[in-house]
């Protein structure tokens, strides 16, 4: 298991480096980058000085390595300083946002929690809804429950989140007035009343995310459960007189969840992508909203860093899923 984990970890590092290179080059070489948009009225000497001051006269490779150093050495050093009160950073230049002149990582640190709370809650609820539905539809294959479930899953899978979100706002916030139509980021949970408000304002965005992902996950659970229920070992388990719940929930379900874990991992990019939309609809002040804000304001360091943070999150969660997979299915470890 340890060698397997190490191998996966070592594979993740070149992936991350390549992704960072792609993101860096795309932003750096794009025609829309501000380096190319210094007005022509500026005299050439001043222009040269500006470019030198920005470090833009260095070769691409040097700038890429400097950016990597900032990202992987200097920023974590400041993070540790913040936690333990040390001074590892030593006053080195941090990645600054062009919009707010504040370090990019401070902004991200403030916002990551919001994103993770909403997405995490949505995803956990999605799994909790989807797995039982998938199992029961497979167990009662072609029953009315299965038919209705498949139809609803198809709808949940096809209706885009930005439409479900808007629809829920129109119905539950505007017409019925049950829930607030936007998410109040400044709310801090201190007692029961604020906790209730927090749950209330999370209800709609979490519902949207949960519905969308539950549709996908339940379909995968169902088809993987169907495959397993037809296997010989299930017949053997029944033949030796095990109770039905034991056969289905212990023998078949365990094996069926293995491919579902892969789907959860492969869905990571779309989950974080989807969070951008849900944050936009419900005005959640998370990193997705920060990305949109930075794009509108042409704030390149922020955009570069946030895109890369999304990539890091995806790779990390993929790694977690890989490790889970290795734990669930010992055959994977010895490929």
């Amino acid at each position, binding site marked *: 298991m340890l060698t397997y984990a190490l191998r996966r970890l070592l594979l993740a590092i070149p992936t991350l480096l390549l992704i960072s290179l792609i993101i860096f080059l795309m932003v750096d070489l794009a025609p*829309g980058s501000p380096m190319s948009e210094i007005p022509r009225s500026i005299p050439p000497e001043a222009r040269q000085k500006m470019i030198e001051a920005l470090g833009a006269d260095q070769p691409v490779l040097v700038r890429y390595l400097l950016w990597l150093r900032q990202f992987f050495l200097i920023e974590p050093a400041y993070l540790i300083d913040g936690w333990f009160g040390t001074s590892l950073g030593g006053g080195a230049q941090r990645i600054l946002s062009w919009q707010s002149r504040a370090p990019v990582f401070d902004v991200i640190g403030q916002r990551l929690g919001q994103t993770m709370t909403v997405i995490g809650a949505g995803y956990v609820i999605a799994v909790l809804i989807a797995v039982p539905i998938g199992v029961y539809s497979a167990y009662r294959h072609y029953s009315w429950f299965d038919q209705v479930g498949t139809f609803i899953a198809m709808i949940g899978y096809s*209706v885009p989140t*930005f439409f479900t979100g808007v629809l829920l706002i129109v119905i539950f916030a505007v017409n019925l007035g049950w829930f607030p139509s936007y998410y109040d980021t400044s709310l801090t949970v201190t007692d029961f009343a604020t906790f209730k408000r927090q749950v209330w304002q999370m209800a709609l965005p979490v519902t949207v995310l949960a519905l969308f992902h539950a549709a996908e996950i339940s379909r995968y659970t169902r088809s993987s459960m169907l495959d397993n229920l037809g296997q010989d070992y299930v017949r053997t388990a029944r033949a030796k007189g095990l109770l039905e719940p034991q056969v289905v929930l212990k023998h078949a379900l365990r094996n069926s969840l293995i491919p579902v874990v892969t789907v959860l991992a492969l869905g990571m*990019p779309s989950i974080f992508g*989807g969070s951008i939309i849900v944050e936009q609809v419900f005005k959640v002040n998370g990193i997705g909203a920060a*990305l949109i804000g930075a794009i509108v304001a*042409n704030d390149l360091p922020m955009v570069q860093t946030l*895109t890369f943070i999304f990539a890091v999150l995806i790779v990390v969660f993929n790694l977690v899923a890989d490790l889970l997979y290795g734990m669930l299915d010992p055959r994977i470890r010895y490929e």
Partner: protein
Amino acid sequence: MSEPVSETVGKPVSETVSETGHGLFSDRPRSPWADVLRQFRSHGGAVAGVVILGLLVLAVVVGPFLWRLDPAFIAPKATDMFKMRNLAPSLAHPFGTDQLGRDQLARMLAGGRVSLAVGFVAMLISLFIGTTVGVLAGYVRWLDGPLMRLTDLFLALPLLPLLLVMVMLFRDALASVLGPEAGAFLLIVGAIGLTSWMQAARIVRGDVLALKEREFVLAARSIGTPPHLIVLHHILPNVISPIMVAATLGFASAIITESALSFLGLGFPPDFPTWGRLLFEGVEYMQADPNRVLFPGVAISLTVLSINYIGDGLRDALDPRLRRR
């Protein structure tokens, strides 16, 4: 399956016979595509999907010739414009008007054209890249490793953020060369195609790997058929079914992605309606007029739902194990 007649049990017999043109006992062999069609037609959801998608495409293609109001028309006099604003649905404007007095039905039709065209072209691009990568990886051994690592890399990319960044960086440059509409179209279609080919590539590679070792390919190689002809004549026709299924799913997801970009305000320029853009504009007015978000939202959802059902039906129809039931 002892008697041959039982093969048509569960399907209207007269229909299958007349449709395929020959019965079970005729001399001519049954074409496999007729079988596929027969199986496809037994999938209720898929047939409904074809009908609904067909109606939507028809409405969007023919509609603007029948409903002749200009989607960009704003009354030139300010007083007229104010009178035309935010009208509720009526005979003159069945879907109402927007905040500038433009006819919503005309805008929906024009927007649908763009949304469907974007989805279709982006799907073609992603299929082309995916099939090329898949065939190369499956057929050329030394390319397999690098190309599959590339596919894994693309699968780990944060796609929506990257798409947003691409639109932000390249929109103005392309717009100055090609004009705002053509520039935005090319950019969005290209960006979506470039970021959605991975599934198709994986499926095609798997199939090619299996096909490569089959006898008919070995036979073709042994009589000296050059590799590009083997791929064109023997491999590609045999991977067409997974490609078709990937195509429908790609079409649906491309439409959703375009709408999502437009919804985030980073799609087409404001005067250029797409369903996603109309939904985005409608959000501001949804308290006063929920129709503004309902119509484009339902249009997108219906399109994607019917395409997904068609994909489901195609997958069942193209699977020979299911077809024989």
